């Protein structure tokens, strides 16, 4: 390969600072989006398992809409098209007035997208418990809300820890799509370093290592959580 290697570029200023700042943005965007995705996804997922036809339909529409449009397209739509649909003043506020428009848009978009995926897992978790426990809870005189709170959800969440882990990992990797609307996260900064120094291979190697580090930490963390919350004899970790 016809290339001049220079690994020193990674520890030279300002490139080290760029990488650090990019990594921070990756974490901030991903965690913000995850909080949104987890809470909204749980609500939507629960709605899909209720007895109300209307709630189920709304939730299904949400999931199908957000799950079936590519994330890249959603980013573009939220950033460029959504503000144009609002009244002019509100549109201008979204474009310029709100704090850090690119970051906010990216975090919300990524959060809403991932929520549809989390919702499916919550629904799968609740459905896997079966109708029997729900009926038993209702027969004991619990309200539907209490059935969810005390019977279904505690078990459902434990069951779906493994698939949720992969969603949590995916959100860190998907956060790189935010660069298309100008959030200077890890991948964007790696590109930026490449453009300033033309040492692209070194910059992207560094970005790869950073992603591996953060996903490894998440994996260890979730494994710890899984171990802590498992109920002996239940499905999750039942084989151990």
């Amino acid at each position, binding site marked *: *390969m*016809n*290339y*001049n290697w220079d690994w020193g570029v990674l520890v030279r200023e300002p490139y080290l600072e760029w990488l650090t700042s990019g990594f921070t943005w990756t974490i901030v965007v991903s965690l913000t989006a995850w909080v949104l995705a987890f809470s909204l996804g749980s609500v939507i997922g629960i709605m899909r398992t209720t007895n109300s036809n209307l709630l189920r339909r709304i939730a299904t529409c949400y999931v199908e809409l957000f799950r079936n449009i590519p994330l890249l397209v959603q980013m573009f739509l939220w950033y*460029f098209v959504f*503000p*144009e649909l609002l009244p002019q003043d509100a549109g*201008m506020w979204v*474009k*310029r007035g709100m704090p850090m*428009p*690119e970051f906010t848009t990216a975090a919300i978009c990524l959060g809403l997208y991932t929520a549809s995926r989390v919702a499916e897992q919550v629904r799968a978790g609740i459905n896997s418990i079966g109708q029997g426990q729900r009926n038993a809870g209702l027969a004991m005189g619990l309200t539907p809300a209490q059935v969810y709170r005390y019977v279904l959800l505690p078990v459902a969440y434990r069951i779906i820890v493994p698939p949720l882990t992969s969603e949590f990992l995916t959100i860190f990797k998907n956060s790189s799509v935010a*660069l*298309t609307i*100008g959030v*200077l996260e890890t991948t*964007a900064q790696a*590109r*930026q370093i*490449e*453009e*300033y*120094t*033309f040492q*692209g*291979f070194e910059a992207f190697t560094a970005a790869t290592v950073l992603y591996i580090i953060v996903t490894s930490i998440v994996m260890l963390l979730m494994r710890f959580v899984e171990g802590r919350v498992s109920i002996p004899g239940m499905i999750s970790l039942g084989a151990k």
Partner: protein
Amino acid sequence: MFKQLCVAAAATVFLLGNAAPSMAADSPVLTRIKERGTVNMGHRESSVPFSYIGSDGKPQGYSIDLCMKFIDAIKAETGLADLKINYVPVTSQTRIALMANGTIDLECGSTTNNLTRQKQVDYLPVTFITGTKIASKKGSGITEIEDLDGKVVALSLGTTNEKAIKRVAAEKGIKLKTVMVKDHPQGWLSVETGRADAYASDHVLLYGLISKSKDPSQFQVTGRFLSYDPYGIMVPRNDSTYRRLGILTLADLMRSGEAHKIYDKWFNPGPTGINMPLSDTLKKAFEIQALPH
């Protein structure tokens, strides 16, 4: 004595007989083109009118036409009459890497020749000269970079323009808000939708963007040049034989006036109505670079 003469004669015959192949043999790029029977040409998709996808779905433009002449010369040099061209789309982010790793043999786009990039790639002679300017809506009161104080400017990630604007702003103490975009169409969309007050890029590209916008009369390109950006066709480094062939081709075009004709085809007024007659600077550059044989 006779013996020595014989050896000398044999050596001469040997050298002459092998002159053509040895030319290509000391050039790794020509050798690999010859082996594959294909030349891999990097091109841009929306650098109007240098290198962009035409209505027939094929790359076209000023740089593409110049590259075709170079490819004709490669054909003659390698003796491959049926040399195939493989079009490889590149972006401002991928072009250097794809050249360094050998995916493309030449890049025909709108690439500024600068000394940092020359650490990884080489260039053929300058075929266009431009610089950073600012495009904004008419009536926005923006003419120079100083007017952007407190305003929002869109910048394309990883361009020489981004560096130029940030450098000048830092020197003059101008406080800019920036919106980073990934390519020219997005930068332009930011100005059209009012997300940014201005978009900074090479002035020729700004004219190109305006000429393709919904209402070209609404927009303006203003200000002094904030950077000097000479464009050149990019070739792999460490291959002077291959590079010389390109320099020779372009020098011939510039000397014969054909470069001027190709320029007029794309810029005066050009298929998109960009209407930029050959500038005096570029005319001089053509004259200076028309090296004799």
